[in-house]
């Protein structure tokens, strides 16, 4: 009698995580290749300064690999990684606040950076970037996970350890604020 086939293959990420837990560096490298750019996009969208983006991505990945034993598969590995990125960015913001007088978003408003890129992004997108950065943390993360990363509310709720209803409310408040900002 033939053995029944599993209905779903184990996710490739899960297999890579298991391999990394056994000490396979190549598995860790593959996970970085898969998710580093999405993580960078999330962090940049949340207001990470360009100059620090590479360091922040590295730090989030290192923290994730160190804490991977605590990842129970409650959400996708990428979603979990993005929430760790949110923590890394929060810590970075605290350190920056201690060492700098001018808030980071002042830099955005003052028109620093490449003028060509700013023109490309457009005035509305620049205002949106500032608005997203000024949102309360949970609203910002829910908004980015939903609107930028295209995740379902259930996935977002599992990653942020909240309920689906609460995630919807945070998203609703974020959208309301951002619409007001853009009008």
């Amino acid at each position, binding site marked *: 009698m033939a053995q029944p086939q599993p209905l779903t293959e184990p996710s490739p990420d899960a297999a890579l995580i298991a391999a990394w837990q056994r000490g396979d560096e190549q598995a860790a490298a593959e996970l*970085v290749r898969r998710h580093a*750019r999405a993580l960078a*996009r999330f962090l940049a969208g949340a207001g990470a300064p360009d100059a620090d983006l590479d360091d922040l991505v590295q730090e989030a990945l290192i923290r994730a690999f160190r804490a991977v*034993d605590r990842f129970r598969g409650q959400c996708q590995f990428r979603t979990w990684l993005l929430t760790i990125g949110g923590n890394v960015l929060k810590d970075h913001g605290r350190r920056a606040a201690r060492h700098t007088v001018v808030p980071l978003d002042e830099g955005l408003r003052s028109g620093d950076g490449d003028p060509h890129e700013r023109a490309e992004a457009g005035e509305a997108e620049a205002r949106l970037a500032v608005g997203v950065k000024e949102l309360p943390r949970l609203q910002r993360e829910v*908004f980015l996970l939903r609107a930028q990363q295209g995740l379902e509310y259930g996935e977002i709720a599992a990653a942020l350890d909240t309920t689906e209803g609460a995630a919807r409310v945070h998203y609703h408040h974020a959208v309301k604020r951002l619409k007001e900002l853009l009008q």
Partner: protein
Amino acid sequence: MNDEVRLEAMAQRLGTQAAERLNVERTTAAVIERLRAEPPRASRWSWMQPTWLRIAAALVVLVGGGLIARRAFVQPGNGGHAIAHFVRDDLTDLSRDQLREVLNRLDETLDLGRTQMSEVDLENLDAQQLRAVLRSLEG
């Protein structure tokens, strides 16, 4: 609704340019290098933290339980209530004449107490006051 669609479309582009500039291979190499260089400490903390939390919780339960037990068994007003209760029981057994005698004794004792408070020295008492003191000592 259109505003929301527009907002989501813009949100999808947020951070795209910065992310495109990320050198993924260089980041990968740097992460692997750091993982090799920095030995993991998380596993030690993962069991240390719950251990410390358990110890702290046990201490809180111990101290809190002790305080609650102390309050339950050692009430400051209990002694006074017990004495009053016994005195009341004794007085109910007395006849009217005996009660009157007790009240007189009480008045005399209180008068004597006031005298003692003001003059302190027994040598200053007259004969009648000394007799009252003696009677009160006899009970």
